[in-house]
């Protein structure tokens, strides 16, 4: 897996003296093209919304294995723990970032989190990160932004193998090859990953990262009818097996369980594209994906427990791109989605829940002048299960001169209520027998329980139970960028207003005191801040990159209550006192400051880099009991993580790379259970063809 880095780096070095701007991400965009921002291929330098590209070389030189590894090193992104590893963008929860592979959405979220560790980076050409609401093109979930993984589809015959081995018995093996004829091209990729997992809690049989085995295969088959018409088929299959030793301690009473979790992830895309003439292009995409999860748990007390979840998503989409004159381009698309889910956590594991969505979108891009580009777009989603969503977006880019440009965009994003929020029917017998019911189920079940005398009280929230509405956000992004041969500086101001947030609320007590929760559209929130990236290429060998995000979050209702003097905390004596606005820290688990710094050295077939990541402290628990987060609450400490990596390409096609992640061995048992201590690894890869350069 590292072979590409190395030949790519030597390749880049080799040509950097020939062209003013290499394709190196450090030195700017160059001729890098982006698909995600406009759903059409565009030069990065012409995009009106904040876009970031992570290239293959960057991924490989960082020694990344899983998608979360490389994303965690990007400005303003941080990885969340719980239900897998999710990504938070612009301060929003992982639920609100859409994850795509080659433009098609991944499904299989647990509690709103898509586990990024399911995705290997061994076959990625580039990762495109679009910030700000993009529902005008992509529909649900694209509230904070979109992360699109573009897989590598080699244009020539190749075969390579890559291996890596490191701490915690973590092994990773990639096999990649492609064959090309005049009409047919095929590329295959396979990845095997395994780890023993680790426990940073001393003497614990429970592992914060469990022993995992993953096998991923990807196949791409392309057929060229002629210069105008192409057909392609992509298939990806991922299987993972996770072994869990769980100890549930309830008031000092420990119950040991041994669990086995199997997740299967299958995606298939068939695309037919046709270019009618110079002005009109059309693509039809048929996409089907399935996520299947099975958890089995055997406990000391002999009670076996099975949890199964299956989700399917099928979509047909057609997009037509029309060029009108020199200045105007229209993209018109529409599609139909059929989505189903079934789970042992719903009323009946045999009953399949269905949602059907029809949608249409249009985007127009007007090059008003050499300097000014305007984009307007909108999408309409008609849902079977809940209210329709309308998502408009406006964006502009103004190039003051070849070096300076200004971007501004405003858009609306939405996230449809998921199946869990609608249909969950779950009672946790292992922890106090509390129940969570989806909004469709809640009233029905509670009324029935009430009728047979099983409800002791109904809470005020019960009477607010209603049909769930989509969650909405309005996002504003204003950015500037400066670029010359050595420097590339971008800064982006953002503000997201999120309405209708769905949250769980206590709606009733059963006789005996067990609590019943359900989901309601109850909260509003905002996030705002600035993201800055600075890249500096000192000379052909040395380059530097720094990133910083300042983030403020909060709930306007909380702020109003504070300003009205209705929020209290405690003084040193434990006596209540009014809380002031300055003590409010906003949403939990958000750091006000996040920064990264990278030093990179490239010389011929050798490279070395040092990557530093910083996160300031973040609120974790409301310990003063006032229902919001303020400086009197519990915080996780801020921390610095240092990663190192060096690599070399040998003349015979062999590449070698070694690295250390988390050099300072920083761990936080309570707040960062997913962060292992120091990791040392080594990787070897071999190219059977194309040994020296492209």
């Amino acid at each position, binding site marked *: 897996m590292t072979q590409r880095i190395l030949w790519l780096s030597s390749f880049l070095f080799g040509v950097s003296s020939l062209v003013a701007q290499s394709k190196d991400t450090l030195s700017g965009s160059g001729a890098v093209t982006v698909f995600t921002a406009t759903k059409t291929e565009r030069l990065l330098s012409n995009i009106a919304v904040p876009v970031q590209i992570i290239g293959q070389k960057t991924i490989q030189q960082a020694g990344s294995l899983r998608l979360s590894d490389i994303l965690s090193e990007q400005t303003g992104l941080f990885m969340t723990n719980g239900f897998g590893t999710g990504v938070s963008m612009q301060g929003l929860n992982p639920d609100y970032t859409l994850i795509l592979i080659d433009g098609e959405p991944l499904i299989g979220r647990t509690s709103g989190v898509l586990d990024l560790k399911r995705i290997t980076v061994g076959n990625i050409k580039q990762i495109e990160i679009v910030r700000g609401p993009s529902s005008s093109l992509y529909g649900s979930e694209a509230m904070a932004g979109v992360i699109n993984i573009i897989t590598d589809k080699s244009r020539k015959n190749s075969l390579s193998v890559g291996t890596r081995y490191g701490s915690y018995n973590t092994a990773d093996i990639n096999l990649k090859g492609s064959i090309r004829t005049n009409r047919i091209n095929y590329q295959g990729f396979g990845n095997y990953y395994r780890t023993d997992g680790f426990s940073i809690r001393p003497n614990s049989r429970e592992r914060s990262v469990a022993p995992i085995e993953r096998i991923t295969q990807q196949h791409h088959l392309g057929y060229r009818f002629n210069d105008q018409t192409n057909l392609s088929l992509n298939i990806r299959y991922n299987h993972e097996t996770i072994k869990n030793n769980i100890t549930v301690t309830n008031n000092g009473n420990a119950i040991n369980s041994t669990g086995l979790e199997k997740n299967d992830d299958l995606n298939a895309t068939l695309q037919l594209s046709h270019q009618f003439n110079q002005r009109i292009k059309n693509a039809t995409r048929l996409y089907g994906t399935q996520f299947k999860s099975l958890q089995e748990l055997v406990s000391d007390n002999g009670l076996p427990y099975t949890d199964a979840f299956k989700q399917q998503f099928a979509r047909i989409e057609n997009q037509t791109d029309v060029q009108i004159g020199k200045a105007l381009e229209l993209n018109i698309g529409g599609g139909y989605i059929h989505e189903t889910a079934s789970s042992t956590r719903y009323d009946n594991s045999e009953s399949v829940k269905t949602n059907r969505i029809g949608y249409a979108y249009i985007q127009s891009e007007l090059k008003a002048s050499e300097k000014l580009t305007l984009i307007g777009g909108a999408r309409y989603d008609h849902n079977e299960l809940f209210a329709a969503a309308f998502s408009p977006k406006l964006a502009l880019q103004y190039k003051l001169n070849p070096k300076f440009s200004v971007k501004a965009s405003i858009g609306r994003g939405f996230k449809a209520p998921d199946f869990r929020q609608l249909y969950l029917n779950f009672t946790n017998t292992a922890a106090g027998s509390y129940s969570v019911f989806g909004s469709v189920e809640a009233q029905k079940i509670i009324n029935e329980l009430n009728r047979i005398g099983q409800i002791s009280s109904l809470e005020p929230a019960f009477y607010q139970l209603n049909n769930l509405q989509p969650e909405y956000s309005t996002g504003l992004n204003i950015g500037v960028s400066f670029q010359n041969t050595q420097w590339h500086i971008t800064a982006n101001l953002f503000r997201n207003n999120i309405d209708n947030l769905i949250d769980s609320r206590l709606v009733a007590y059963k006789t005996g005191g067990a609590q019943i929760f359900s989901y309601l559209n109850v909260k509003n929130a905002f996030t705002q801040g600035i993201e800055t990236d600075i890249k500096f290429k000192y000379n052909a060998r040395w380059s530097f990159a720094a990133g910083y995000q300042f983030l403020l979050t909060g709930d306007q209702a909380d702020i109003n209550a504070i300003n009205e003097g209705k929020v209290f905390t405690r003084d040193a004596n434990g006596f209540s006192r009014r809380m002031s606005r300055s003590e409010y820290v906003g949403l939990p688990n958000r750091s006000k400051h996040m920064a990264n710094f990278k030093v990179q050295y490239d010389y011929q077939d050798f490279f070395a880099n040092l990557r530093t990541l910083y996160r300031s402290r973040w609120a974790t628990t409301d*310990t003063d009991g006032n*229902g919001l987060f303020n400086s009197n609450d519990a915080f996780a400490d801020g921390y610095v993580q240092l990663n190192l990596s060096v690599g070399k390409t040998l003349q015979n096609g062999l590449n070698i790379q070694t690295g250390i992640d988390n050099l300072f061995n920083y761990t936080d048992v309570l707040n960062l259970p997913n962060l292992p201590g120091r990791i040392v690894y080594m990787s070897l890869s071999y190219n059977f063809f194309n040994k020296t350069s492209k």
Partner: protein
Amino acid sequence: MKQMIFVLGVAVSLVACSKDDNSGSNAVVETITVKDLSADTIIGITPGAPPTGGFPFGAGRYTFYSLETNKIVPASDSASNKWDLAFRGTTIATNSGNSGPGGGGAFVFVGLFNDLKTIPADSTFRIDNAPSAFAIPTGSNRAWYVYDGINQLVNPIPGRVLVIRTATGKYAKVEILNYYKGGTTPAPTASDAIKLTTQRYYTFRYSFQPNGTKTF
């Protein structure tokens, strides 16, 4: 009953009181802080797994307290007007309704202890209807505490004042300050054993108006 008396005897010796001057206009009413009033502390855990097992339990007895005399009242006097509040776990009973023969009652005032100078004339005092409806509602986030389920800790909600009508129809205001021994909530990282053994010790402050008016 012997066990109960023993528990109470220990509790009396643990209860420490401090008095400080009231800064209000009426210098008669003083504010008293009661520390470490034990309220049916944990003596075991039901064997087995939840929902039937695994739960901590105490002896199941209330600790009766007189706000007027600032003393624990023996359980043998539970059927009298001698007590005003009774504590068991997170439940606080008043000497009213089906909890006791007194004419007590209570409601929860949202605001600061010192800001409550006069009980509003239109206030409604609730009376106990155990076990489903106490004058001071039971349960997390309903009256005086919120339960942090992740860390398994009970946190008193700041800005909540329990306005009490005593057994003899006088008025008092109470602010619960802490639920753990020594008046300090264990750290979230503390062991389960510590969280269990140090809970159910109330620290609270109160003002009692002996002259029967609603002014403090």
